[in-house]
């Protein structure tokens, strides 16, 4: 199999798995809350329905409103090309490192916020404002956590970070590593609109962040945005899974190894999804103005992670 086919393969795997991940989390959450829950494949059905539906656009919206879903979706898909989903090293590793991943995701958020402002809805503005606030505050944690990893691995390159743990397994339990994991986990909750920062299931406008921003979207645009959101969650989970616990990632590009890698990835994602489901079941949503406290806690974790990684070297 040609090396260059890996990229589209990765993207397709990610695209296919992402809605399922959302469905799985929802299902697990429902079970934990003693509900039956919708089936795991429900998100796929929703996407299909949305793609088929008519699009209603606000009379105030400009071209940006139409372009934003494509940019959001496109930037997230581009990220899946860079993240070591299935194998290391990736053919495109030279194109971008972990920072590029973070900033590509921020690009999506940027346009989504703009699109939220575009129709002139007060909810869109509110969502955009809050989303950007959370994104801005999550940024330092993310960066420091990345540098904690990078300092250990001697590179911000995703592949190298993963390979290092594979070669020196004991590093996986190094304090810097663990702390960085915790920090990124908290950031994941914030960045992907999970509880306790945002409630993905809410339908009360005033408490919404992400949902408020995309309130005006419908039809295929909404489908793209929802899909991109699930993809983003998947990317974060993949980072958590394959950078911190990289076992199972294919080191050689044989069909068997890749298949094994897909399977382990799915398992790891399920485990992380389960963790999120547990967290979401046990924790209520925070007030918006207490979110910074959570994020500063994660920042401290990241700071400790960096400090630990260079003090204990």
């Amino acid at each position: 199999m040609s090396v260059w086919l890996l990229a589209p393969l990765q993207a397709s795997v990610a695209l296919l798995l992402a809605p399922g991940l959302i469905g799985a989390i929802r299902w697990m959450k429902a079970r934990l809350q003693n509900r039956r829950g919708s089936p795991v494949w429900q998100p796929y059905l929703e996407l299909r329905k949305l793609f088929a539906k008519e699009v209603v656009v606000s009379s105030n919206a400009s071209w940006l409103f139409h372009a934003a879903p494509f940019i959001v979706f496109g930037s997230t898909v581009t990220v899946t090309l860079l993240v070591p989903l299935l194998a290391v090293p990736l053919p495109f590793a030279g194109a971008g490192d972990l920072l590029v991943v973070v900033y590509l995701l921020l690009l999506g958020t940027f346009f989504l916020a703009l699109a939220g402002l575009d129709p002139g809805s007060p909810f869109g503005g509110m969502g955009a404002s809050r989303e950007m606030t959370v994104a801005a505050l999550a940024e330092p944690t993310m960066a420091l956590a990345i540098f904690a990893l990078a300092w250990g691995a001697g590179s911000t390159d995703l592949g190298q970070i993963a390979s290092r743990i594979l070669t020196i397994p004991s590093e996986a339990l190094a304090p810097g590593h663990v702390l960085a994991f915790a920090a990124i986990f908290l950031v994941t909750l914030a960045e992907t609109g999970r509880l306790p920062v945002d409630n993905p299931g809410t339908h009360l406008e005033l408490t919404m962040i992400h949902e408020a921003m995309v309130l005006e979207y419908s039809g295929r645009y909404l489908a793209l945005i929802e899909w991109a959101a699930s993809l983003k969650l998947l990317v974060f989970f993949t980072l958590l899974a394959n950078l911190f616990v990289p076992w199972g990632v294919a080191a050689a590009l044989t069909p068997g190894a890749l298949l094994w890698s897909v399977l382990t990835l799915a398992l790891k994602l399920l485990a992380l999804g389960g963790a999120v489901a547990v967290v979401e079941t046990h924790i209520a949503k925070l007030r918006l103005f207490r979110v910074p406290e959570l994020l500063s806690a994660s920042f401290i974790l990241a700071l400790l992670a960096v400090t630990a990684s260079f003090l204990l070297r």
Partner: protein
Amino acid sequence: MVSGYAAGAAAALVFGTGALARWASALGAIVGAAAGVALAAGAWVWGAAFVLEAPGLLGPAGGMAFSLDGLGAVFLGLTSLIAAPSALYGAGYSRTWDGRPALRQVGFMLNVFLLTMSLVPLADGALTFLLFWEGMSLSSYFLVLTEADGPDVVEAGQWYLAMTQIGLACLLGAFLLIQSGGPGSFASLRAAAAELPAGTRDAVFALALVGFGGKAGLIPLHVWLPRAHPAAPSHVSALMSGAMIKMGVYGLLRVGLDVLGGGPAWWGALVIGLGALSAVLGILYALTEDDIKRLLAYSSVENIGVIMLGVGAAFLFKSLGMPQAGALALAAALFHAVNHAAFKGLLFLGAGAVLHATGTRDMNHLGGLIRGMPWTAALFLVGSVAIAGLPPLNGFVSEWLLFQSLLPGIGVPSPLVAVLMVLALGMLALTAGLAAACFVKAFGITFLAIPRSPEALAAHEAAWSMRVGMVALAGACLALSVGASVILPLLSAVAVPLVGPAAPAPVFNVGVTLRTPEGFARMSPLLVAAGLGLVVLATWLAVRLFGSRRPLRVGETWGCGRVVQTPRMEYTSTAFAEPLRRIFAAFYRPSEDVSIDFHPESRYFVQSISYRSAIEPWFERYLYAPVIARVRLWSERVLALQSGSVHAYLTYLVAVLVLLLGWLAVTGRR
């Protein structure tokens, strides 16, 4: 170059106050800028030395001398890069002043400004440097005062020139401490600096930092910047923000790294600290601004802070004996300086177009301009993405490089430095995040949604010359991103000799990929841009091909069931920044004032609510105001001497006579 600008200046004076004068002076400036680019490229890319000595000028002070090395060429190139589009833009923008003497003033001073600013990096010698430095300040001061009737404009000019002057006093001290006799050329300064005692070197550096930091707008010396930049005509703001404040960076590099050759680690640490402070506070101030040009001005403070992080890291790494890391940091800082020139220039030009079309800079009165001014909106969006440091544009590349260049600092043996570096990295990341939020606000509130005032509704697209100027800069933003792997090797060639005698150059040009030293990280702006473009295009095609074919339906925006959507229901600029204002309340110390008018009949019917909120101007209140008050107090005391009584006056005279005679009597017997 000189003749181009001179011709432009003369044209502005000669051709009256009509379209001809506008175009003639712009043409002069463009010719001058083109020559500047050629000169810079000659010295920089092909290493052609440029030396010109004019001992006849300013003979008594050692004569003038010019030469251009790589560092100067970067800044000359940066200036010229933004000068031509701004001048072109100015030709359309200045139509406001047709038939008024102000046009003559703008045309003339703009050319003088560009000329003196271009000669600053060419100057080879303390006096020549300071002369053009002051020329640059003075001409831009006149440009700031173009619309002196506007509110706060004169005050802005006052602050600006006053701060400049305090800076100049420091610079004079710095240069003269290095060498007070002799030819004064940078080569001789370098030789003299090598023999200075450590204390003097520290003093020189501190003075240079204050002098150049003030010009660059480093917090807490930034107070003039958010006043002066908005007050100036927009293409001048673009030049001031894009190019002029960079001269502060240039000066610091020239004196600190070139002439002094670097110093102890605390120099770098200090610069990093101030840079981080400026970056974070700058963007925090920008976030709460409602005036779009002030927002951009504060964002310049932020970006200068970001550049200074790189500069400081270069100082630090040099003193720690890590020349390669230093070269990388310096190259990143230089690259960010060039990038900032491109996108901040673009943004100021865009803001100018908005101001031109609507007559207001208050974002709470704007909105919906994307329909009336599609070009301006699209170009402003490009600038916003670039300045927010998002791929695939140039701001991202330089921020990425800065991150990478600060990273080696974590590994230095001194824990203090390492902690500082970690904090700097965190601040840089926070800045980047806040910048994204800030420019969502700047673009979103200004250009999107429903117009908030009749002026915004009636806005028209900018003149073609203005648009061409903006397009050129937007193109530069993209070119600087995808061409980074071509430009960065050149920048590192400039940086390497500055940070150490034998610094190996950071490897940059692996095809289209950037690679930092020792393979620490790789990134290809071109591939990222291409990949992003391809994926977005593919998505669009896929949706087009496979998605629903049902036509769009236009409906009202959802307003909780309310039928009519009015601009008053929209999120405003103030509202957008509210969460951050609350989160950083400890810093902003916002004062809020809500006054509610009730219906006279019943308290349950509200007639109007007015909300006013202001953030506390810390630096003005706690740093500048006490000094000003103290000086005024002393002034009153001194003026009390002039009491009007001739007897008192004569008493002073006799008293000083008696005192001096007494002094002689006591000490005179030697």
